[in-house]
């Protein structure tokens, strides 16, 4: 495992063996909880720089897949690779930004302190950290709450904070789980802009969402049902609607 990978390099990432790697690759990936299969063995490859929409009804395995990609869950079998590196490895953690559906914040750190420490943990510091933090707070209209503790935040504000924290650091793979839940319309628009920006700048983006608006933006749609791959093709609102129903 390469511990010193620079995930932000604007070049096609190479895996440890020097071959061109997919942004996200699931190989025989499965997850079981006792007798219940949350995800049946899945093979899926998301190309570098692709913008993919992940859809499926509740309990279809979307969150399980994304959490295994982030390294938060361990596969029962198979593996996930991020830019060619095993999910959860130091290099994969440097490459992947994970925006979860449930914001988890420190109750005793202000928003600006969250941005500072999480940025520093990802190797961003100094002026760059300040600039990125200010830009994100501006985009999500968080600037006037910069020094407040999250305990005073509404669900939507917490979600915006969580998104800002996920984006404060550079990444080459962005994995997002139900990002629009709890956001107001300006927040949704800001997030759509950010996702599109990330894609334009070459990042691999995978978004699990039921939002039909996103079908217009996504290049590809992957549908899951009962933990199995149900669809892999063009993202159209009609197709998305069929997959989530």
């Amino acid at each position, binding site marked *: 495992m390469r511990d010193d990978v*620079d995930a932000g390099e*604007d070049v096609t990432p190479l895996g440890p063996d020097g071959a061109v790697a997919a942004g996200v690759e699931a190989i025989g990936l499965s997850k079981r909880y006792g007798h219940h299969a949350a995800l049946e063995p899945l093979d899926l490859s998301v190309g570098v720089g692709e913008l993919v929409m992940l859809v499926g009804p509740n309990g279809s395995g979307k969150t399980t897949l994304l959490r295994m990609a982030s390294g938060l869950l361990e596969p029962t079998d198979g593996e996930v690779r991020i830019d060619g590196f095993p999910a*959860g490895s130091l290099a994969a953690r*440097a490459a992947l930004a994970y925006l979860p559906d449930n914001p*988890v914040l420190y109750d005793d750190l202000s928003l600006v302190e969250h941005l500072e420490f999480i940025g*520093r943990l990802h190797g961003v510091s100094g002026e760059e950290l300040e600039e990125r933090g200010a830009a994100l707070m*501006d985009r999500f209209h968080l600037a006037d709450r910069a020094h407040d503790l999250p305990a005073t935040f509404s669900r939507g504000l917490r979600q915006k904070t969580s998104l800002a924290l996920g984006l404060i650091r*550079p990444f080459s793979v962005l994995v997002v789980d139900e990002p629009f839940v709890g956001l107001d319309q300006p927040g949704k628009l800001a997030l759509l802009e950010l996702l599109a920006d990330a*894609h334009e700048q070459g990042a691999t983006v995978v978004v699990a969402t039921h939002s039909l608006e996103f079908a217009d933006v996504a290049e590809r749609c992957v549908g899951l049902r009962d933990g199995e791959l149900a669809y892999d093709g063009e993202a159209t609102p009609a197709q998305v609607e069929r997959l989530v129903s």
Partner: protein
Amino acid sequence: MGQAASRRDDGIDPDPLVGAAGGPAGVAGAPASTVVHDLGRARRRNRAAGVDVFEGFYQAYLTAFGCAIAVLLGSDAIGDQRATADQVARVVAHGPAVVGLGVAVVLAVALRSGSRGGPLVLPAADVRHVLLAPVPRRDALRGPAVHQVRFSAFVGLVVGAGVAVVAARRLPGGVPEWAAVGGGVGAVVGATAAGVGLVGCGRRVRPWIASALAAALVGWAVADVVTGRVTSPMTLVGQLALMPLRFHPPSLAVLLLSVTAVVAGVLGVGGLSIEQAERRATLASQIRFALTLQDLRTVVLLRRQLTQEQSRPRPWVRLGALAGGRTVVWRRDLRGVARWPGVRLARVLLLAVVAGGCLVAAWAGTTPLLLVAALALFLAGLEALEPMAQDIDHPDLPSSLPVVRGELRLGHAWVPLGTMVVVALIGWGTAILVAAAGVFPVNLAVTVGAAMVVPAALLATVGAATSVVMEPSAGGNGFLPAEIAGVKVVLRAVWAPALVLLGLTPLLVARSSHQHGVAAGPAAVSGSIFPLMVGVLGLGWLRFREDVHEYFRATTAPAKGAATGDA
């Protein structure tokens, strides 16, 4: 997609999300350990800034006041009968192995906890932000691991010193000497347990392997107890603990093992499973919240989730199909017991043995151990009351049945009562075994124990049922002075265990009679009459609780209406 690049019309340049710096702390930025350290320091600073100094002093004053009262009352309650020379000789011969067995149980629990990701409980935000950052996990986790070792050592120190002070009242040697040795050995055991747990989680020891190792440790210690030989390191710890009676220099070698376990645990903690860390973080925060509400039932449920304890898909014993009629509730409850997982059976068995052992020690003069016996029976009662607790958890279900709620609740009490009778019988058997080892006459254990089985089981059931049925504290003390609100909170917490303690008082009556030359058996029987009456009243309370509440509501409503000018 094309909209993305041109949609910024607010004059702010789109920031490069991809590219530029990136990479792990320690590669591109400050060393990882510095960032993690700074993060912790900032959190502590913010927490300290939010603390009201006077409120803090007041809480410290109340705590110190409460502790002082507890120490004064406790000192009086502890028997001061000095052990005879024969008893001291027996403690010297068998004590180390018995203490070693206790140490083995602690290490076994730590090992099993380690296989499930314990003993570390990280804040959920640390799991999400620090452990998912490109920071070497061994660096990020070293601080919390050291903190855990320190905390476990401190808990061990306090418990060890407390037990040693009790021992000092009966055994030769001064209190300071016993307290110092007990505290020191307790700290060593606490730190070692944390180290063993950290090794288990860092090395990702599989639960079945951890269980096998835990059983081997306990078995080894039991072998030392039975054979009277010193073969296990745990017995060496026992020798250290009894140093004021006899010093065995070779037993100091066990400290090396302790240091090894702690060092290996702290250095290897980076291998912990992030999935388990996240699960523990979430459940532990919920348990803390439930504890603040004194919601024991929720604590029990969350603890089961934390230990991944689930009912058996296949029951130990197959019972026939559920028929209607009055026995349907009993049969449902029996099915629940028949599906108890092996771990729960073992835990209840252990609690029964602990209760029996503590009652023997209380008979022999160490009265405070009656409290430990009551606590053990209370915990066993909470396990036995599971079916009733499930009805309380899901109130819609009993409400939808054409049965009076009180009758249903009372119906749920019989199988737990039967279970607790079995638990009490096991405790009684333990007492007889200990008596047979020559500690005191067997006939005393038989007669006094026989008189205690039913009141102990009944009051344990009623006490646990009281705790299960009582709703969690919903606050409402805001208008009371702090001292009264505090007393109310304490009473609420101790009420249910106090009922269980009442069921053990026949032992005190019998002991007192025995000391005055009166037959202990009949005295125990007469001493059990009052607890039995209270137990029956408790069952009545379970049946008529709603009716009594309704009566008081109806009685006080006119007065309240008048007070608010609602006439």
